[in-house]
């Protein structure tokens, strides 16, 4: 199972919305290839914790490390960023103005101000787009910004949603292709020119999308529009889409909600296959105890935003606090 450092380590994550502390100093570790379930009554903070890990929310305190690298946490030294934006332009303007005044030449002053404005616009655009060199510069200055969801996907996290959020009017194949967005490298320029590289990459991508659909049990349904798929197939499509980015960790938010026992069993088998064949680690939010007890390596229990128990299914099942808070009477 594990191999030393965990895939994901959340430490003392706290999420406060005004007066409501939705998640209170929760620790969570996910070893490589492990299946971890996150359970708790409704309102316990499970989806909030998911959203923090996925990069949608910036925690009030604590942090999330992915592969040993701090990806998510409260911003540090954020005040330095605006200084970085403004400083180059101000320096150029100041230089230009002083040189211009010294030599009594108006065009130099005007030119310097124009150049300063252009630099300011360029740095603002960089701040918005955040290319790699900009992020490196910020890291060197000790500025930390919580990763955005797309950054987390880039770093190896895939995610499904509690209420299915497929791209309803796109086909199954197109949904998976969007999931593969971070793994495709053709630029708009390649698309413009329809280079052989782009065409080859698109063709290979479609084949891979078909493979992923096959993996989740949607063989041959490539061209069906997502909204026309039956409910269970939509959940499977969401999983296929999340797999598109070749994640190391999959976050599944109530994957068996609304399913009958047969479909639930199939989903359990799929999750097992994903771990076995693709080596994925999986973090599940689940309410169905058969699933939770059946496939989890370890379980973390939340209640009112706090972690009240963590351990193997047997340990959790027997834990009196858990029983009191959530499981109710035993024997399920």
């Amino acid at each position: 199972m594990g191999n030393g450092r965990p895939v994901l380590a959340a430490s003392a994550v706290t999420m406060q919305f005004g007066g409501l502390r939705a998640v209170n100093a929760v620790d969570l570790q996910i070893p490589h290839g492990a299946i971890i379930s996150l359970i708790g009554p409704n309102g316990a903070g499970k989806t909030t914790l998911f959203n923090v890990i996925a990069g949608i929310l910036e925690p009030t305190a604590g942090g999330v490390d992915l592969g040993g690298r701090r990806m998510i946490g409260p911003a540090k030294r954020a005040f330095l960023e605006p200084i970085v934006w403004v400083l180059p332009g101000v320096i150029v303007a100041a230089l230009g103005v002083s040189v211009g005044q010294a030599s009594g030449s108006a065009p130099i002053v005007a030119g310097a101000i124009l150049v300063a404005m252009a630099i300011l616009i360029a740095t603002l655009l960089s701040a918005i787009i955040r290319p790699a060199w900009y992020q490196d510069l910020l890291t060197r200055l000790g500025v930390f910004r919580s990763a955005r969801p797309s950054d987390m996907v880039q770093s190896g996290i895939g995610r499904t949603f509690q209420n299915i959020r497929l791209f309803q009017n796109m086909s199954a194949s197109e949904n998976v292709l969007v999931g593969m967005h971070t793994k495709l490298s053709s630029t708009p320029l390649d698309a413009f020119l329809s280079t052989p590289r782009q065409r080859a990459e698109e063709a290979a991508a479609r084949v891979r999308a078909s493979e992923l659909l096959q993996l989740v049990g949607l063989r041959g349904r490539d061209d069906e529009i997502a909204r026309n798929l039956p409910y269970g197939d939509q959940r499977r499509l969401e999983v296929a889409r999340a797999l598109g980015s070749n994640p190391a960790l999959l976050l599944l938010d109530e994957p068996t909600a609304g399913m009958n026992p047969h479909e639930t069993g199939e989903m359990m088998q799929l999750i097992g296959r994903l771990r076995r064949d693709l080596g994925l680690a999986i973090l599940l939010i689940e309410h169905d105890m058969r699933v939770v007890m059946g496939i989890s390596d370890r379980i973390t229990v939340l209640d009112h935003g706090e972690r009240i128990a963590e351990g193997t299914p047997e340990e959790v099942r027997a834990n009196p606090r858990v029983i009191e808070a959530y499981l109710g009477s035993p024997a399920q």
Partner: protein
Amino acid sequence: MSGSSRPASRSRQIIPPRISAFFSAHRSISIVVGMALATTLLPLVVLLPPFSTFSRQAVWIDGFSIAGVFVLLALGLNVVVGLAGLLDLGYAAFYAIGAYSYAYGASPFSGLHVPFWPMLLVGAFSAATFGLLLGAPTLRLRGDYLAIVTLGFGEIVPIVFLNADTYTNGTNGIGGVFKPELLGYTFPLIEPLPFYVTMAVIVTVTMIFLYRLQDSRLGRAWMAIREDELAANSNGINTVTTKLLAFALGASTAGLAGVFTAAKLTLVSPDQFLFTVSFTVLAMVVLGGMGNIWGVAVGAFVLYTIQSVLLKQLNQFFTETQVPILKDIDFVQYQFLLYGLALVLMMLIRPEGLFPSRRRRQELHEAEFELAGDGDEAAEAPEAVQ
């Protein structure tokens, strides 16, 4: 061939499926062939009655060139509104930027004489840059608020051009803009044919590029953002750069249209780029079929032709036949009333536009599609999961 066997319920497809499949496979060639056919046939068709009674052929061809301008504008706005789903109400600003770029670069006013053909690219590029600059502050805005900001920008740009006298000659505008030259041949002032052919080429190239983008990784990213921005973000799409690219690329065709207009009319002034232009182009995109590239192009062409030709003809007809009340109405003045009426009617009857993309038709006729069969499960279950 397609996996879904669902019939297209009440809305029939205008092009039979086998033919549209062929066009999809050989897209660029189909576009070139189609445009070549249209470009050669149109001037011939207008020699036939009743078209020949409306105007001379030269006037028709001139009108087609202007229609082409609107086609370009509609194609660009389609990228922003139709593909990426970002409501832009100030699109005329980019048109103005393209026009003034060429006017400034090639007129007696500034003394510069940059050739037309490179200026096409320069105009497209400057408009694209402003697309980026406009798009940047709007990234976190949704729907209505985005529309308001873009509307504001659409107002700001003509006013800036109006007031920046030293660069733009204020209210008088920049006149005497130099005509394009090709291998020593200068486009004549009166003869409409060279401009007509040039516009046909520009439209063809633009359509080819836009189709390629639509079917690429970027096109899918735009559609994903339009469908569900959070899900798009959570699947690795950098919504920031993707939206900025939509603004930039959408604005670039307006830049092209602007450069062309400046060269053709040899005059640019701020009142050519008011909100009415933005509104007209938006109406063309909506009525033509948002998201469908050729649908928008045909829609824009048809609408412009109706507006410029039909309304005048109505005027003439009612005046000649002396119909009591109608002969006193100047239909040309009422074109925006008619646009408004047309929009209202279309939204009630066929909100997906005249030539919608398959997706748009599905989006807008949800209820029909779901009731039509085994979509029942999909319709009911999500509600159950709250």
